[in-house]
């Protein structure tokens, strides 16, 4: 096994920095006044400390190095000259640390952005492949589904059918209705690929779409012993979208919230305008929708998969695993972003940001 120096430094930045400073100090002391380049060697531990531990760590190391070099040279030249020398070194070290820290932050941010973009691309690619497949399968399923449900209907309506037959026909019918809903969901999801961004969307009032979704689900919420509270924090927010799409996003999130609270609770829906870095990293103004529940929360191991199609933790019949992937698809198509924060046993908060028109 080979241990590379940067790896060691990255793992133990402080011990490495101290060892290097001491090493350079002893070289500094041993070399005497004639050899001045040794002072430059302090830049190496300075760089390590700054890169791996930030600007303050770099400045602390710079101060230590300047103090040591002042003490060493103070033995041989006048105190005045030694202090002046030390201050000069400190100035140079400080500028170096400052530049390097700025560079490090920049590199870190860029790497973070790239990671985000790569993740999004990978997700989009997966969705695209799935979309094509879904559309094909859905189309082929229409006729057989229809034949099954039609035959079941005929059995059910036939006065000659025994009661048991009629009862079982009802079951068959109910199940075909369920399959139809799943396939329809899947198709909605698949078709998102095609009309994304290509059509110019009308500017709509965000609050109107949000309150429509809230109204639509009020009865469902009541039935499950939950309430939906709408908080409107901004006078008017226009976003470019189809109203149904925004309604779908909001109702999917509210429905998830309701389902996450089997023992009742509140879902809070809030709209506001806010400044936030966009997908390109530059800050811009968003129409933000926050949907927060007091439910069971999302397990950490599930979190990376919540936007994947067909991923669901709900009971059979409760969810198809497509709600959040459709939501994700709509939001990204609209140039927006969706974030989630969750705490087990406390609740989940989804934040959807749509660019203002």
């Amino acid at each position, binding site marked *: 096994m080979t241990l590379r120096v940067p790896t060691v430094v990255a793992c133990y930045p402080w011990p490495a920095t101290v060892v290097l400073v001491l090493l350079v100090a002893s070289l500094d002391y041993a070399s005497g006044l004639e050899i001045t380049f040794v002072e430059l060697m302090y830049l190496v531990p300075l760089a390590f400390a700054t890169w791996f531990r930030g600007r303050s760590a770099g400045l602390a190391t710079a101060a230590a190095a300047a103090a040591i070099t002042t003490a060493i040279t103070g033995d041989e030249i006048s105190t005045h000259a030694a202090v002046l020398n030390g201050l000069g070194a400190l100035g140079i070290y400080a500028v170096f640390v400052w530049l390097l820290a700025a560079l490090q932050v920049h590199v870190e941010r860029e790497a973070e952005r790239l990671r985000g973009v790569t993740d999004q691309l990978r997700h989009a690619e997966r969705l695209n492949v799935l979309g094509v497949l879904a559309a094909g399968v*859905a*189309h*082929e*399923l*229409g*006729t057989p*589904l*229809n*034949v*099954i*449900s*039609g*035959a079941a*209907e*005929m059995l059910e*309506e036939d006065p000659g059918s025994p009661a048991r037959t009629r009862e079982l026909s009802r079951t068959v019918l109910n199940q*075909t209705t369920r399959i*139809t809903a799943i*396939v*329809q969901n899947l*198709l909605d999801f698949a*078709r998102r690929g095609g009309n994304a961004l290509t059509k110019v969307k009308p500017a709509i009032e965000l609050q109107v779409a949000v309150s429509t979704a809230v109204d639509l689900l009020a009865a469902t919420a009541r039935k499950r012993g939950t309430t939906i509270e709408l908080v409107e924090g901004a006078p008017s927010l226009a976003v470019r979208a189809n109203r149904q799409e925004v309604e779908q996003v909001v109702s999917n999130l509210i429905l998830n919230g309701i389902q996450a609270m089997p023992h009742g609770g509140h879902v809070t829906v809030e709209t506001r305008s806010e400044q936030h870095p966009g997908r390109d990293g530059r800050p811009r103004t968003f129409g933000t929708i926050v949907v927060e529940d007091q439910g069971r929360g999302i397990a950490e191991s599930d979190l990376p998969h919540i936007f994947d199609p067909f991923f669901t933790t709900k009971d059979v019949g409760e969810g198809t695993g497509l709600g959040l992937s459709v939501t994700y698809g709509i939001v990204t198509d609209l140039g927006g972003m969706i974030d989630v924060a969750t705490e087990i046993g406390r609740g989940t908060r989804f934040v959807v940001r749509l660019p203002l028109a």
Partner: protein
Amino acid sequence: MTGVVQLVIADDDPDMRALVRATLSPEYPHAVEVVDGRDLFWHLVRQHTPQDLVIVADVKMPAYDGLDVLDAWQEEHGEAPIVIITAFPDDAVRERVERLGATLLPKPFSRANLRAAVKAAQAKLA
């Protein structure tokens, strides 16, 4: 109307045709089943009176697309009551059905909806 109304059922699936026929047989005892676009085309061309027809047709069929056939035929012969049955139609299909003046009935449909769609298609021409 000049005679008995004939029901034309165009779908490549025999079970589907049987279902449509059984559902509509009380109102339309005279039914003809065609199995693809070509079959539909020739049947319609032989039939010169659209007023005496009710057509229930699938879109995706072998040979010709149901919508293409009906589009071409209506241009020549005038309008007939048409119900287009197709699985999970997209916006493009919806638009074409609209232009055709037909009634769209997405598969899977209930028998009651099929009866209602046929009535709606006839009402459009009334």
